[in-house]
């Protein structure tokens, strides 16, 4: 929000923006899929200002 990117999907940690090592391999892959799907949903949504899209 502070840096002004228009479409933002929050992730779980700076060292692993597309993962979550606390999950097992299968759950982590599923989390990553939901994350990318959330990013795709964000890309398809009109925004006027920095907007956060939470992972479903």
């Amino acid at each position, binding site marked *: 929000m502070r840096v002004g990117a228009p479409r933002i999907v929050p992730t779980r940690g700076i060292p692993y*923006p597309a993962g979550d090592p606390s999950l097992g391999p299968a759950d982590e892959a599923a989390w990553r899929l939901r994350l990318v799907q959330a990013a795709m949903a964000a890309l398809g949504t009109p925004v006027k200002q920095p907007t956060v899209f939470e992972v479903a």
Partner: protein
Amino acid sequence: MSRVVHYINQFFAGVGGEDSADTPPTSRDEPVGPGRRLAQLIGPEHEVVATVFCGDDHASGDPAVIAEIIELIGAHQPDLVVAGPAFTSGRYGLACARVVAAAAAAGIPAVAAMHPDNPGLDEAGSAPVVASGEVARRMGPSLDTLAAAVRRLLAGEELTSDDGRVGAVPRRSRVADDNAANRAVDLVLGRLGGDTNSTEVPLPRFDRVTPAAPVDDLGAVKLALVTESALVPDDNPDHLESARATKWLRYGLENRDTLVPGEWRSVHGGFSTVWANEDPHRLLPLDVARRLEGDGAIGSLYPAYLVTAGNGTSVGNARRFGIEWAADLRHSEVRAAILTAT
């Protein structure tokens, strides 16, 4: 008579629009496009001896092109280089800013004109930039401002905000009388005493990023993965810096469905890379992107990813990478990108 060389883009040179954004640097021995009006405005004692132009993608995509442009400009032995007006056009503004910065570095006085919100503005470094309007419709008054600035510079004077000068005034390190801790206590006491303004650092002005229009047909478009997580091939063949990056890189993803641990490594110096090196998908979600491509949810995946290291990177460089990435991806017909940020 003073010799002025004018830099413009392919559009204002009359060569073409986006279809001609790849036009290489070209020189003409006369004023072209807005240069004709500029030549009138700067008066008979100064002459626009040449115009150098270049396509927006070409000029903003590869810093080496700027050297070619400067060589063409230098051949006309100018007393002053003028670039723009670039209005709010990012690639054009970036090119103008770099041209004046490079000219200044080569010892040739230079000035550019662009809107204060042009993302290229900061690339001008310490070379002066004067304000233009937001869009080409404001060409007339923008050229008036620019011509006045040109006359002042050729008279050996400095530009100030009265001349429409915009952009950051360089901040330089200085040695203060007291150490920073004591100055902090002084500032606290001042604030406790009712002073509400004092600070050593002005609040920065951040970019207002105009959001891109939504992509409603992702199943039909090309999508790119980009990242500032410093994920590179294990031997870091291009020596990406772990901090204060000065460059970005492109690595192919052709015929790859996954990123094999051990073949890739993050050289980012700002976070623990243990997790990323265990599984590079934690930085670049290629595995699921391929799956979504296979399912038809993504039309196609751009066959490479763009990467830099976002760690202590100056905002100026980061902005440049962003403009270059946008130009590069647009040129490759990519219509959407997912940036994984650390």
